[in-house]
């Protein structure tokens, strides 16, 4: 094992770790926010919006994230230069990282909408009726009663899904993005060392997954005190 490259790449690796973390954080938060309307559209169960939401979730869950990323970066990206340059020139010049953020966010939303849909349906009707009878309007019921109760239910699933999302972040390096994996591949290109950078990536992901599990266990404990039965 040869680790002499490590000091030289310490800063790029640190930076790459930041990119990986950014992709995870933005896609999880953004994906969850987008999952709420997707789940509600499916629950409402009527017309085009419900079917569109169902189709979107099925597509996101039924196709590889890698290919979704390619579709956005190469596929959609190849169409942008055809748009009028004076208005859409910035679209054609977008960095790969934005496509990564979009792909990961949409993908996470597809998975979470499915989970959230089940959880929203599982909230007892009585809770919602009670909220309505207290004079809360639809929006307020959703914001203060329905969504919090549903979110509480899915916390354990959410922890697992976030770790699954963390484990898909290395896919980002397949388009030119310098996340942790991207930097590790660069090390391999520069030094012709195959195993060491990958082992570093594996070990780092192990630690990150463990850390997320711990954070969630604490968070769940804290939230549990507010849980009505």
């Amino acid at each position, binding site marked *: 094992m040869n680790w002499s490259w490590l000091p030289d790449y310490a800063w790029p690796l640190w930076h790459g770790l930041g990119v990986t973390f950014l992709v995870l954080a933005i896609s999880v938060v953004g994906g969850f926010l987008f999952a709420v309307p997707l789940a509600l559209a499916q629950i409402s169960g009527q017309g085009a919006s419900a079917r569109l939401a169902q189709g979107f979730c*099925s*597509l996101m*869950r*039924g*196709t*590889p*994230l*890698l*290919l*979704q990323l*390619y*579709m956005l970066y*190469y*596929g*959609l*990206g*190849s*169409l942008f*230069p*055809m748009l009028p340059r004076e208005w859409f020139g910035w679209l054609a010049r977008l960095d790969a990282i934005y496509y990564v953020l979009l792909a990961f966010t949409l993908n996470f939303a597809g998975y979470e909408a499915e989970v959230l849909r089940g959880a929203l349906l599982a909230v007892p009707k009585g809770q919602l009726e009670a909220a309505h009878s207290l004079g809360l309007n639809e929006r307020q019921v959703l914001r203060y009663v329905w969504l919090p109760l549903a979110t509480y239910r899915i916390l354990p699933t959410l922890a697992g899904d976030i770790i699954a999302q*963390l*484990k*898909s*972040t*290395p*896919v980002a390096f*397949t388009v030119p993005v310098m996340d942790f*994996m991207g930097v590790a591949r660069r090390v391999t290109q520069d030094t012709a060392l*195959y*195993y060491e950078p*990958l*082992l570093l*990536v*594996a070990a780092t*992901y*192990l630690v990150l*997954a*463990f850390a997320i599990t711990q954070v969630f266990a604490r968070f769940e404990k804290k939230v549990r005190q507010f849980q009505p039965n």
Partner: protein
Amino acid sequence: MHVTLDASPGVSILTLLSWGDAGYADELFFGALSTFFIAILAFGLGLALGFGAAIARFSAISMLRQISWIYSTLFRAVPELVLILILYYAGGDLVTLAAKALGLGAVAFNGPTAAVVVLGLVQGAYAGEVLRGAILAVPQGYKEAALSLGLSQAQTFRYVSLPLMLPLALPGLSNLWLSLTKATALVSVVGYTELTLATQQAAGSSKLYFVMYGAALLLYWWLSVVSGRLFARLENHFRRYQAPLAVGSGA
């Protein structure tokens, strides 16, 4: 279509999506076929490894239990893409070493064998957990009854535990199959021509990026919708054997 979508001038999209030399439909089709076959073989290998790992977890030999635990924990905690790359390099080195030891010339570790072995090893760790859970869910009383009737350990497993646990494992295995069909896309990174890499090549030479990737997405989608339905049917079929279990295990 009025838009040319950046295609080579004079060639219509329909031609490029046709079968044969002019089009890329055959390339995509054989890519999809190759995806399907490595997925099936890797699923079989993963199932076999998973069975081994699950049974090892209940072994009387503590070293077997530990090895199985380390395998399933490590392989499930490390990202699949990273594992695939590590296993791919390691497999190549091992094959080269073995070939040298046997006095053979250079033997390459690539193509379908590498894809199946690498995906199967990753799959085995997940399958092991599903099968272990299913074995645990078979009530102890059934096994004790079988043993007290004079069946050996092996017979008890074969005739009592196995038929009872398989329906319990089916939903988990169905999820694994669906995630495996998607994970096959990752072996395109090590240069194996399945659907994703075939699409990349077709998109690159036709310049029809959007259309080619769209077609590939639809193929993957179709594969997972159809196999999802098949698994649902299989689950329905097996559910009738499950009735007596529901009482004892709360499953």
